[in-house]
């Protein structure tokens, strides 16, 4: 299995994604821990786990929307890290590399389960029941005041998986549409369309929170 391979071999994004790198400054002691972990130092690996477990777990939780699946995937990601850390060359921040490795593992698992992450049909078929409906003839309810984190987390957790994936990757994690298109094996236009629908759906959910279905992510991750 070569999860990071997709990133290593695919064409680089047309423009660099400063967001991911700016958001991942070096962590004190991390470089030493990486070097030691490459030599098989168990304590160094434990340190890397402690430094990055929350970020990896949060990412898994947001993408999978399920605590148990997120824990399994966190375990999987760190086991994979242990086996592959020797191939980390330091071209990007370690957290960025680990983040991408995790995203690829999550997507791989979802594909194995047969989940069609981004359906082209969904884009061209407006009858999809999950597609947010807009009617410019009537006045839409609008969001009032600033959006709080808990409300947004709750709404994101109830998005359909395809919408959630694109929204988390683009708006939360800072991926570009061309990167998402590569990851999800869809067109750039499809990624833009899915993101727009995700935001429309979120607006609907935030204006009408009673329409959101309770998700395990809400009660266990949003505190």
């Amino acid at each position: 299995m070569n999860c990071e391979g997709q990133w290593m071999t695919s064409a680089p994004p047309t423009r660099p994604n400063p967001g991911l790198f700016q958001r991942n400054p070096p962590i004190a002691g991390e470089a030493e821990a990486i070097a030691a972990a490459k030599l098989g130092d168990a304590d160094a690996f434990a340190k890397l786990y402690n430094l990055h477990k929350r970020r990896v777990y949060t990412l898994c939780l947001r993408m999978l929307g399920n605590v148990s699946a997120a824990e399994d995937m966190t375990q999987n990601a760190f086991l994979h890290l242990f086996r592959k850390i020797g191939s980390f060359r330091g071209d990007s921040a370690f957290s960025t590399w680990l983040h991408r490795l995790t995203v690829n593992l999550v997507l791989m698992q979802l594909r194995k389960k047969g989940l069609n992450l981004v359906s082209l049909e969904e884009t061209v078929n407006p009858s999809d029941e999950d597609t947010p409906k807009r009617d410019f003839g009537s006045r839409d309810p609008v969001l009032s005041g600033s959006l709080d984190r808990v409300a947004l987390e709750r709404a994101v957790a109830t998005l359909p998986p395809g919408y959630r994936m694109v929204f988390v990757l683009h708006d939360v994690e800072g991926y570009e549409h061309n990167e998402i298109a590569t990851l999800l094996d869809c067109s750039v236009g499809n990624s833009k369309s899915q993101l727009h629908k995700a935001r429309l759906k979120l607006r609907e959910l935030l204006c009408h929170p009673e329409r959101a279905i309770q998700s395990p992510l809400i009660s266990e991750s949003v505190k």
Partner: protein
Amino acid sequence: MIDPFNIDFDNLKPEEFEHILPELFATGEGKVSKDPRLHKFLAANPDCAALVSDLEAIAEAARNLLEPVAVEPSEQVWLNIQSRLHEETKLNGHAKKSE
């Protein structure tokens, strides 16, 4: 079908605006409300202006979700990792010995 490269912004209809909105967000660094080509249209169409404002607010709030939530994976996750690594190390050791 609307040609996204040949849009008459002065005579844009709300339905057309909705159609091109994903592209406007994607190409305008997420700041559709600041696009000078749309000032007149948004001023004349408060529903569309409200929609843009809300979608921008959602995108802005999403950036604040990057920081991990205040929860960690359970202790069992690390125990499982340690156990699996221990098994793998043992297996690798046996494999090396038998070579």
